[in-house]
């Protein structure tokens, strides 16, 4: 990535600096060295200016930005992603999952403190601008997941997938780049995004599920068709997952996502392992949530929510049913193809033993035709599966995520309620104190009241916010769903048409 960086139009000393930074060098190191080694060139100065004129307001930043937008954004991006472990506290109210700091961070540590103050400014700026630019038009970003490769051996083996991004969005430094990722990286990304956005009301697309059986087979090295199928299935699922995630405008700006797509090294997300401590914690949390759901009774003041929830329940049920039926269809089609193949073989043998030459020829032709039909059936089975069935299961999971969002809203409301109740109690205490005339206690009570009033307000605000976000999200979700389903259905039907057509041709020739 370093090699492809164009020297900015400003500054002559630049090229030499960049030449030093050839491939293999870590991107972040290169950033550091450029900034450090050429203080004279305007670009870093611009930044330096920015840094020094800390809160100088938008102007200087804007000037520099306009001049040299792309690269600056790129640098800003890198800085931001470097900072992300530190910035987590700013973005989310929960502590970020335990992520081992990226090594380059340590190199840039001395600069970070100075930058961290300005970085938010740049980041917010860039985010707003990106939102403006990306809002209301097609997201020009394409993601592909390909080349599954087995890395390592035995039980420590894993599959590495190549994630290729093609984009013309300016927040990325290049228009085309690819990195290698493994499955747990994807899960790690999802858990980070989920922890940041789910409780605020955004619908985060769920990651594909872990499959211990499947992966063990692959690890052990069985080279049979079921493990290749499994890998293919997973690869396709990962691709769809990433595509959905980047289509979400807010998630697209997330630094974690960008880091995932761009950086060549990613810290191992250990807490996605099934048997880790974090995993067990997750399970406990899930159980607690389930119990909570049953006990919380929310006064739904908004009919829209109630209706939507009901709708999603129904949709979930029906999609599940449809999914089961489609799976049966896939299974039978595979059976049909296998049986047709067997039949083709015996027809061929029959043709061989047949005396009468014309009939013999006819029979062998029949065998050939049947074989080809069998292939067709198999392809159709795959098409059925990948397009139709997987879409359905994806949506079933998405709906689960939606329900999760609704649940969060409920929790938020609960918190708000609790805050209100506590406030009431505190007020009562205050009143009692007033009666009993204990001045210091009164003061304390008053403080507490103020505190809880703030919390109540906060809770209310949060609740409103989450409701608003959910509304928007659901709207987006629905629109997307409609589009998705339609595209898929159309593609599926077209594939059926094609299959029939080919079958027709074969039979005609016969």
């Amino acid at each position: 990535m370093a090699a492809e960086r164009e020297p900015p139009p400003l500054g002559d000393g630049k090229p030499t600096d960049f030449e030093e930074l050839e491939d293999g060098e870590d991107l972040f190191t290169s950033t550091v060295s450029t900034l450090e080694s050429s203080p004279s060139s305007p670009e870093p100065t611009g930044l330096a200016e920015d840094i020094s004129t800390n809160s100088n307001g938008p102007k200087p930043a804007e000037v520099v930005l306009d001049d040299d937008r792309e690269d600056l954004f790129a640098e800003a991006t890198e800085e931001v992603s470097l900072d992300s472990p530190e910035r987590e506290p700013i973005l989310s109210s929960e502590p970020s999952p335990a992520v081992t700091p990226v090594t380059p961070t340590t190199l840039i540590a001395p600069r970070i403190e100075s930058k961290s103050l300005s970085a938010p400014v740049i980041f917010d700026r860039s985010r707003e601008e990106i939102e403006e630019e990306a809002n209301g038009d097609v997201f020009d970003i394409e993601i592909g997941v390909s080349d599954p490769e087995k890395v390592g051996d035995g039980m420590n083996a894993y599959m590495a997938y190549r994630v290729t991004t093609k984009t013309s969005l300016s927040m990325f430094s290049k228009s085309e780049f690819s990195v290698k990722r493994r499955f747990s990286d994807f899960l790690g990304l999802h858990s980070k995004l989920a922890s940041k956005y789910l409780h605020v009301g955004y619908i985060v697309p769920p990651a594909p599920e872990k499959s211990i059986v499947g992966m063990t087979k692959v690890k052990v090295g069985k080279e049979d068709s079921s493990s290749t199928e499994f890998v293919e299935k997973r690869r396709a699922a990962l691709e769809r997952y990433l595509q959905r995630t980047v289509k979400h405008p807010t998630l697209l700006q997330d630094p974690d996502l960008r880091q995932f797509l761009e950086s060549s090294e990613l810290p191992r997300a250990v807490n996605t392992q099934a048997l880790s401590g974090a995993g067990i914690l997750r399970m406990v949390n899930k159980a607690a949530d389930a119990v909570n759901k049953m006990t919380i009774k929310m006064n739904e003041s908004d009919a829209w929510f109630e209706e939507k929830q009901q709708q999603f329940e129904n949709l979930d049920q029906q999609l599940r049913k449809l999914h089961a039926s489609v799976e049966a269809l896939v299974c039978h089609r595979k059976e049909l193809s296998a049986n047709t193949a067997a039949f083709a073989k015996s027809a061929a043998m029959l043709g061989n033993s047949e005396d009468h030459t014309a009939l013999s020829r006819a029979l062998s032709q029949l065998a050939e035709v049947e074989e080809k039909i069998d292939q067709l059936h198999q392809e159709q089975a795959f098409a059925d599966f990948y397009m139709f069935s997987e879409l359905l299961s994806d949506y079933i999971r998405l709906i689960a995520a939606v329900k999760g969002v609704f649940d969060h809203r409920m929790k938020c409301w609960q918190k708000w309620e609790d805050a209100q109740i506590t406030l009431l109690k505190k007020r009562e205490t205050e009143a009692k104190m007033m009666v009993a005339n204990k001045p210091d206690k009164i003061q304390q009570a008053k403080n507490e009241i103020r505190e809880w009033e703030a919390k109540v307000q906060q809770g209310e605000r949060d609740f409103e916010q989450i409701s608003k976000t959910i509304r928007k999200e659901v709207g987006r979700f629905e629109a997307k769903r409609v589009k998705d389903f339609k595209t898929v259905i159309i593609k599926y039907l077209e594939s059926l048409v094609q299959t029939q057509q080919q079958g027709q041709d074969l039979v005609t020739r016969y």
Partner: protein
Amino acid sequence: MPSSTAVDLHGDSSLQVEISDAVSERDKVKFTVQTKSCLPHFAQTEFSVVRQHEEFIWLHDAYVENEEYAGLIIPPAPPRPDFEASREKLQKLGEGDSSITREEFAKMKQELEAEYLAIFKKTVAMHEVFLQRLAAHPTLRRDHNFFVFLEYGQDLSVRGKNRKELLGGFLRNIVKSADEALITGMSGLKEVDDFFEHERTFLLEYHTRIRDACLRADRVMHSHKCLADDYIPISAALSSLGTQEVNQLKTSFLKLAELFERLRKLEGRMASDEDLKLSDMLRYYMRDSQAAKDLLYRRLRALADYENANKALDKARTRNREVRTAESHQQLCCQRFERLSDSAKQELMDFKSRRVSSFRKNLIELAELELKHAKASTLLLRNTLVALKGEP
């Protein structure tokens, strides 16, 4: 099923047999056999009787056991009407699943009933073909038992084979195959006729392979049918999704549901066509080739007898005792053998030509039907696609 699938009626209308009606009662099927004939032997020109499956079997066995017809291929007996599988499925559906909607249930019931009907039609056809082949064969049609079968108004009081007889039949088969093995292994038994040698090897191989092909064709048909049936729940789920939706997806889903419903019918028809044209034909010829094999076996037996008689004659001549009996015995065997060989040759050639024409006809019909169905479903799919794309 058209009766001329496996039978080449020689255009001889002096004896026409058909099954004009059939009734299915609890355990059995009653066939109404109608005969039209101008043969002097019969009392009337047109008459009909009611027969059951067991009586067909009796007729078949009578032919087989008759020494006179040893040199002929006896048309294979029709298979027992078997509604078990279908009945079971119907029962299971009745007990069924509360999760399927009423429409789904109605459709599945309809499917099963259609299946039942199809099996019924098939068994009628099989019985009919059996009779018609007998009627068409110049020698077999003159059999006395046949006349009785066709004409005798009362019940032939033929009961189904009881267990002892079944066992007996089974044992006889074993003996027969052991015998065959013995004969073929017998030294000095040379096949004088190349034609028969060739036919034997051919038939043996052919029979095994056709049996194989038949089994597999059955499986293909079965999975095709399952596939078609799968469309039922899919269609139902889609239509309930469609009724629930409030946005543009609604019409899409409903149309899709309809599409699947129609596709299902098409696929079902394809499956049943395969069944009729391919598997049934294969099955019939499997049985026919078995009958041909039986014929060859009988001839072989006759040859062995002839050889034995020759040896006995030689022995008698050397000992100069009972020469005459040995001689006459040998004469008998020789005649029998030659008679058998001649008719067998004729029969086998008939068999071949019958087989070829039948295969040809069926395969062509099958291809045409498949083409027709494929065209229909392509049209259907295209129309739906146009409709879907046309919407916003």
